[in-house]
């Protein structure tokens, strides 16, 4: 028992866990009536669920040593397109499939060019970020730019309906997170992600199909981002130009907070969920303290800088201890 405790304490995510708990306590004590009301818990679910889903896709990419900056755009585009086809009369299920298909396509393009074309993933996904965001604007142009309204109830139930007291989309998220955590920890294909991220060349040499893994993980990331977009759009009942804007960086911060590293080979799905929770809490605190969105951005930027520096510092420290210059 003591060994287990010691092992938990040594993990770097422990800081985040502690701060999350502290924040939670502060909020519940300090702003009790505002924070712990049912309403707030509900809105927390709504903001966490899509983000956590995207984070699963992102942390998997981080584990394999890469990442995807286009997830925000994909989320927005999938939401917009789905809203468009639903409002044109297509039934719920096919519409959702269309949205997911967009995510898969973007993921395919990203993954194919990165894995088989050898393109730098960061700049590549910035390119698709741009294309995606542009397409959102193209889809929602003219009068549509204020939002495409959705009437289809069977579609709306996804985001607005509840089962057993929790939002449907929250359940979806739980399934995704738990499944992903299980697969990455306990199954071969999941563990292989760590091998690929830890040493890409070596993984290739032991027979792991690294290029295919890259392609598939990018497609998964796109798919999950699209799923998040569909859910969020369903929740609000209307599409938005701003859905997913600047999301990718917040997601990356969440994953890094949860123990992932830009260098690859590390990270846990559960950690990314923790990170999303933490960030959601921080944003809650901001909103309660009525900090303007501009200052929120400033703080997010500062946090990102801090975490990236810290991550880099730790990696460098480890390398130096091994004698590297």
């Amino acid at each position, binding site marked *: 028992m003591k060994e287990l405790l010691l092992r938990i304490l040594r993990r770097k995510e422990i800081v985040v866990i502690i701060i999350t708990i502290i924040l939670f306590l502060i909020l519940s004590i300090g702003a009790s009536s505002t924070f712990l009301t049912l309403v707030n818990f509900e809105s927390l679910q709504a903001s966490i669920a899509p983000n956590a889903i995207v984070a699963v896709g992102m942390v998997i990419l981080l584990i394999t040593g890469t990442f995807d900056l286009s997830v925000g755009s994909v989320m927005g585009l999938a939401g917009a397109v789905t809203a468009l086809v639903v409002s044109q009369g297509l039934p719920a299920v096919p519409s959702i499939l269309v949205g997911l298909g967009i995510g898969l396509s973007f993921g395919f393009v990203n993954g194919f060019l990165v894995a088989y074309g050898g393109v730098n993933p960061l700049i590549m996904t910035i390119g698709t970020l741009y294309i995606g965001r542009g397409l959102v604007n193209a889809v929602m142009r003219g009068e549509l730019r204020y939002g495409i309204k959705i009437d289809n109830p069977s579609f709306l139930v996804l985001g607005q309906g509840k089962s057993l007291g929790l939002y449907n989309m929250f359940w979806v998220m739980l399934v995704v997170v738990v499944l992903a955590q299980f697969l990455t920890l*306990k*199954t*071969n294909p999941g*563990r292989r992600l*760590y*091998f690929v*991220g*830890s*040493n890409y*060349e*070596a*993984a290739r*040499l*032991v*027979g*792991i199909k690294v290029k295919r893994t890259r392609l598939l993980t990018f497609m998964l990331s796109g798919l999950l981002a699209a799923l998040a977009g569909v859910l969020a759009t369903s929740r609000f009942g209307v599409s938005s130009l701003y859905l997913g804007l600047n999301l990718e960086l917040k997601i990356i911060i969440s994953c890094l907070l949860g123990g992932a590293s830009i260098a*690859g*080979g*590390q990270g846990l799905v559960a950690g990314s969920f923790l990170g999303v929770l933490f960030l959601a809490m921080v944003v809650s605190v901001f909103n309660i303290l009525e900090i303007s969105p501009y200052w929120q951005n400033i703080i997010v930027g500062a946090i990102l800088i801090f975490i990236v520096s810290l991550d880099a510092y730790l990696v460098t420290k*480890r390398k130096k*201890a*091994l*004698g590297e*210059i």
Partner: protein
Amino acid sequence: MAASDSEILVLEAIAKSFGVVQALKGVSFPIRRGEIHAILGENGAGKSTLVKIIKGELRPDSGRLFFEGSEVRVFDPLHANSIGITMVHQELTIFEDLTVAENIYPNNVFRTRLGIIDKRLMLEKAKEQLALFNLTIDPAEKIANLPLADQRIVEILRATALERKLIILDEPTSGLSESDVRILIELIKRLKAKGITILYISHRIAEVLELSDRVSILKDGSYVKTVDTEEVNSAELIHLMVGREVDLLYSKKKTVDRRGEGAFLTVQGVGKSGFVQEVSFSLYRREILGIYGLEGSGVEKLSHVLFGLDQPDTGSVAVAGEELRHHSTERMIRKGVVYLSNNRKQAGLFFGMSAADNMACPVLDRLSRRGILKRQEIQRYTEGFVERFNIVIPDVRTRPRNLSGGNQQKLMFSICLGATPACVILNEPTRGIDVGAKAEIHKFVLGLPEEDTSVIVFSSEIPELMALCDRVIVMKNNRIVDELAGKEIEEEKIMALAAGD
């Protein structure tokens, strides 16, 4: 040609070309089951091409390959793996972030009935493998925490754990200290005892002589001969490889005592926590000083700290009488000290830039007037060195990546010496290059004192130190154990100091 039962791998007229370059010309010879079969040859002889074909990475243009009697038609590393052939590469291919057990079994096959990974079983099996070779490494340990030699051992275990029939080892002892080499050699002998056939690729003739049963020599893409190791000696092997009479590479130097000429570089109480403790010594003018130590003795870090690649925690380095306050490579170069890197693939060359650009780097100020580079002069400068060191290069605009290993090393030498340094720090000056180039480089180094240059040589090959140095410093456990001069420089004595109690 039917393969007999005792021959596990038969090569028949294997040929392979890359464009106009014929890497292999009709190579044919058999490898017997259960033997340790070494392949020797200079760089460019075709060793790596041959090995790549055996392990399935390349397809031969013509010829046939028979493994265990049946012809190999599919050339794919995974296929080779599945029929029983595997290779351990020269560059480490470990998974740093993962444990020893996961490194031994990367394609984890231990599943419970539910399809999930059985971690306990994997650890048990890993322990078994380790025990088979009398190793005390903890399988649950993160591999990043192990020393280099152990990491390499784990890599070899990855091959054995798969119960492969043929294991190809490519320079397995490269970068290891003598005692670790011994551990590895013992391990390899035990592999043989288990009936595994081993293909051993190495430049180190002494190891080849000790370990192998038979040796096949390649020269210029052609097969020369296979000999029984018992029936040859080092000189004969070299002769077969190089085809010319080469003076025994490692004759002991006639040392010179330079203490009277005063110290050029003095190291005083230098320490770097975890790596080096209180090291003090002097390099005298025009002497060649060797520094030797096993893995973990601190020599690698000492070389970094010496040149300013890393900062010492304590102590100081003084060059030409002046103590350096803020140590940096730039200051060392300005004081006339240069450093030859021990890993030219990683540092020391600019592979994508022309040879002339490479040469110009440390002396940019000298080759420019008020900051503007003088192209003609850079060209002349480079050509001068090409001639002086016999570098085989078509044009000064050629990039190092198009040169052979030996010529790359010579280019690196030129870059350093071009700065007309007062002192050269050589780190493994002849690692990974063939016999011919090795001899040339030794000749240059021996000639340096006559040009008023002092030399420090870090090398893991004791015979090389014996051939080059006037004095040898031996390190152990992060400290200097002793200094040997003149007649005292003997292989056994050095080893005793470095490894003994």
